[in-house]
């Protein structure tokens, strides 16, 4: 387990420092690709796009209120957001979480946001597994996440717990 976490962190560092510009220009789901654009409404109805967060280190968190493991993960995300939200990274400025919910009922979604005091970006088309974004990102199960750099390039996928935290920590400007 420890070895796999170290491996993932090393991979993240290598990719962050060494992704060729040519590779980073193509859109896709592989590490090194530009993450596909997402533009969905927040609870207030205003659309927020992923590309509007360029310049920041961004964790795209795919979750839903009906997903137990996703709910269990939210306190960790809250801690990471508080700890790294305004940090200076080697290339990015600030850390943002872009939460994409696969909920179906707006009331449940909003209630959970309030209850868990989620203060990072939240968007959803409320289409459950029928959401085109679930298709675009080829999501097979929740929770699922993607870490992208200041250019919108994917540097890690589906990291949880300590592996996720270490992947962010390693990018802090020393």
């Amino acid at each position: 387990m420890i070895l796999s976490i170290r491996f993932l962190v090393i991979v993240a560092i290598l990719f962050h420092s060494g992704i060729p510009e040519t590779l980073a220009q193509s859109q896709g789901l592989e590490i090194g690709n530009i993450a596909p654009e997402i533009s969905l409404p927040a609870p207030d109805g205003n659309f927020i796009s992923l590309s509007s967060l360029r310049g920041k280190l961004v964790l795209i968190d795919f979750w839903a209120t009906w997903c137990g493991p996703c709910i269990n993960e939210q306190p960790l995300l809250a801690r990471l957001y508080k700890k790294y939200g305004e940090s200076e990274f080697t290339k990015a400025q600030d850390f943002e979480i872009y939460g994409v919910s696969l909920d179906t009922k707006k009331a449940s979604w909003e209630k959970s946001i309030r209850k868990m005091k989620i203060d990072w970006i939240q968007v959803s088309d409320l289409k459950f597994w029928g959401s085109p974004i679930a298709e675009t990102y080829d999501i097979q199960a929740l929770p699922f996440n993607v870490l992208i750099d200041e250019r919108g390039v994917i540097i890690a996928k589906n990291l949880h717990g300590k592996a996720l935290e270490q992947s962010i920590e390693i990018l802090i400007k020393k």
Partner: protein
Amino acid sequence: MVLPFQSFAQRQRIEPWTESQLMSPPELAKIINESSKPTTYIFSIGPTGLIKNSIDIGEGKEKANLDRLKKQVDKLPLDARIVIYCGCCPFDKCPNIRPAFNLLNEMKFTNHKLLNLPKNLKVDWIDHGYPINE
């Protein structure tokens, strides 16, 4: 504590359904697509009623939703063909299917089934192109 002499089967969770009470997705898709078949009542006891012709009950972990399911099936004969599904997540993590299936057991239904979505509704239904509500 798991005793060393327990068999593998004994260590498995005892489910309220039997193997024969699991309906495969292609079987349900065929039933939906062939309207000449006898009526099958399909209930979603998960986040949403995505499957075509299904009735959205709400998550089976909530008592209010179990009451809704009970009200829906109360008028049906005990041998009615009933299929329930969730599809939020793998069976072992799903909080909805067991309370709902237990309810149908307690009500003495004899022809009720659980749609076999071992991973989730996307992987086991949508990705196969099976019919969904538009």
